[in-house]
């Protein structure tokens, strides 16, 4: 088997920069989004994307694109005043990157069942999902790395105990616990907070799968010659774990993380069936995708798929990043 040499780190840099841009866009969602994500326009429910035109009916080409509404044209304006928003805790503003004058509405990705702008919801919803996904993945994988690593490295009864515990965690139906947790949570907490708590529990409970995979790798790696040699030379267990064994398991860990982050973002779509997702009217990528799981939406409103494009792009970036990191770690000596 041959493989073409990859320019070292190029993929890594591209993925990192691209993800950075995405996260930045999520933080500045208020500025980039033309509307507040919960503003309902009840006469414009399930409206396909507004067309942007450059050529008007008389054939004149305009430099600035515009939108038709009731026969009149409304040009696209930049740095418009609109619904107020805040970035973080301190920065408040009502300037948006672009928009059109009322009564026209600029619905670049169409509207949902309440006439809410899908683009604004996509941007605002990015932050919670882009935070929750990697958080869940990191929790599961980190716990899996620690527990699986210990199990594989020490073997014997440590391995037995951890692996049997893993089986327990994999088998028990955790939705009961989730219902109980949701019940215990006060009704008045922010929808995002409730969701994050639920997700944290799901992620913590989900340590078992990564742990099993990592433990297998570590079991194999700990008897390698260099490990034996290092121990013979008096290196402590911790040192050996860190420098020799963990890099071996890192490949699995990264692959798992790149798989779990998207899964946790999408898990919200399933969790919301049980009332454990992000509640109305707060948007998130999970609950936007959940709307697609209705037959009438699926078969009638094609533009509701468009947020999926953004989702897929981010997933691809996670994958490229993980892949590139894997390459770098694998290239380390040892």
């Amino acid at each position, binding site marked *: 088997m041959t493989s073409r040499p990859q320019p070292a780190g190029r993929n890594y840099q591209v993925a990192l920069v691209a993800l950075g841009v995405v996260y930045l866009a999520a933080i500045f969602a208020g500025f980039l989004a033309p509307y507040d994500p*919960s503003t*309902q326009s*009840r006469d414009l*429910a399930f409206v396909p994307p507004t067309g942007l035109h450059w050529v008007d009916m008389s054939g004149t080409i305009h430099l600035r694109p515009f939108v038709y509404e009731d026969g009149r044209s409304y040009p696209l304006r930049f740095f418009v005043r609109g619904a107020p928003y805040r970035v973080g805790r301190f920065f408040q503003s009502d300037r948006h990157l672009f928009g059109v004058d009322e009564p026209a509405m600029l619905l670049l990705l169409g509207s949902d*069942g*309440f006439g809410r702008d899908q683009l604004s919801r996509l941007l605002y919803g990015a932050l919670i999902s882009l935070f929750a996904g990697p958080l869940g993945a990191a929790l599961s994988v980190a716990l899996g790395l620690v527990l699986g690593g210990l199990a594989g490295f020490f073997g014997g009864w440590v391995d037995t105990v951890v692996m049997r515990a893993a089986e327990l965690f994999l088998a028990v139906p955790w939705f009961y616990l989730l*219902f109980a947790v*949701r*019940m215990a949570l006060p*009704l*008045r907490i922010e*929808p995002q907070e*409730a969701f994050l708590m639920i997700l944290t529990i799901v992620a913590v409970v989900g340590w078992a799968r990564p742990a099993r995979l990592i433990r297998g790798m570590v079991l194999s790696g700990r008897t390698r010659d260099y490990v034996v040699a290092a121990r013979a030379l008096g290196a402590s267990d911790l040192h050996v774990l860190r420098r020799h064994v963990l890099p071996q398991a890192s490949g699995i860990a990264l692959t798992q993380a790149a798989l779990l982050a998207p899964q946790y973002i999408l898990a919200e779509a399933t969790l*919301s*069936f*049980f*009332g454990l997702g992000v*509640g*109305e*009217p707060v948007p998130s990528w999970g609950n936007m995708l959940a709307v697609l*799981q*209705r*037959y*009438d*939406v699926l*078969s*009638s409103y094609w533009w509701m798929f468009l947020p999926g494009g953004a989702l897929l792009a981010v997933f691809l970036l996670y994958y490229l990043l993980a892949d590139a990191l894997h390459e770098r770690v694998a290239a380390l000596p040892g």
Partner: protein
Amino acid sequence: MTRRLAALTLALSVVFAAGTDVASQQAAATEWLVSRADVGRPGGQLVVIERAEPRTLNPVVAVDAPSKEILARTTADLIHVDRETQQPQPALARSWTVSPDGRRFTLSLRHGVRFSDGQPFDADDVVFSFTVYLDEKVGSPQRDLLIVGDKPITVRKIDQYTVQVDLAEPYAIGERLFDSVAMLPRHLLETPYTEGRLARMWAVGTAADAFAGLGPFRLREYVPGQRLTLERNPFYWKTDRAGTHLPYLDRLVFVFVPSEDAQALRFQAGDADVTTRLSAANFEVLMRDRGRRNYDLLDAGPGLDYTFLFFNQNTVAPNDAPQVARRRGWFRQLAFRQAVSLAIDRDAIVRLVYRGRATPLWGHVPPGNKLWVNRSLPRPSRSPDRARERLRSAGFSWNAAGALVDKDGQAVDFTIVTNTGNTERIQIATIVQDDLKQVGIRVGVVTLELRTLLQRLLTTHDYDACVLALGASDGDPSTEMNVWLSSGGTHLWNPEQASPATPWEAEIDTLMRRQLTERDVQARKRLYDRVQELVAENLPVISLVSPSVLAGTTKGLGNLRPTIFDHHALWNVDELFWRGRPAGGTR
């Protein structure tokens, strides 16, 4: 030799003739109920979509809807309320008399009726059935329906075809009491009953020959997780006007499709003939595809369900937080509830959630309930201005940011809970949330799994407001006693009160109790009209919408007369037939 043969033949023919004579006498003895529907042709199979598997085929313990729907096709009652005319009709009882004080019913049973296994039906079966239903140890949910004046009814056998039923006090619904109370076969169930294992009989998966019923169909086959097939009951006691024995259909198949979207898809593909309880959204999808397919879609108009918003009006417990007491204080103010009702855009709910296939409500009885709805109730249109005016009159005001604050300057915000698994309710809550934002109230929407929700509503009373729906299967106010009586368990905003918390609740209590024993229909209507007035005035529930009943059937089903009452398409399944199809059915 020939003479002997002739004598034998003669003897045999005499015996044969006598035998047929006896048989035809017995057959003549059956008093058929003649259906007034169009005359149809026998044959064919009807495939019905059912949303879940039945949990049991035992009429005594069945509580879930799928079980009851299937049992309604395999069992029969003494007096049946015609779902189209809403009037009680003779069923297994061919006639009955009522004593002048309304406390004694004497029912004359139809002669010659047999169970689906051929065994005869008579008064012993009736007495046995009621004994079982009324036995506390058996614990049948039917028992609650047979308690009049706090005492169970008594049923006595007068002779083989006559029974006498005594009530402790006159009962307004009279003979409707007997509707849907399935008559049980004594010859099969008496032994298990005396041995105390009746409740475990007739579970799903029991062999078909262990069942016997008086309905138009009997069990043929059950395939777990997939379908349940019923076949024609050859001993059914109804015929059509031409004398053909009903039912026309050979088979009735219930297929189990747990997901609502999958139900619509299954019907659209033509894999099923009847689907009821379509959501408005899926109805629209099916409408668009109608041209290419072989089905009819039916909008039977506003049904009996009503969706509403209600606030927690339970008494504040001593150890509740001050915030809880404060919020409860807001909810208990009538002006607050009136303002909320004025602020809600019911038309938007009808348009966005139900695509126009619903009716806005201001009272809890929907217009679909033609016999009981109070048409003179006011219908104030949506007005955020008038809502603000009401709030001002109650001491609320707005702060600089536009948020509503109460007398003490605290911002008004609360949460609406509703259950998962019902997208329409969640959408309604989202619309209400946005409407109340317009008057400065911040509302959160929390969806909870159903039983978690009910725990909060009915046990811990730990909620602010809730969007929920109730639906009567009959429309008669007697079925809603537990909702409107202050001591009732379904008196959602403040259940199981020891004594009425407010004067209007006390008045409703009196009215509901009176209408239960009032036998004059007009007087009863007036009583219940007043109840509706009180509910609309005092807004313990803020009625929002009543969805229309939507169903779909394959084209060519004769005698199909959809109603808003359960079962919307199958209530007269014994009269349904296929037009223009070969008798054997195409599937």
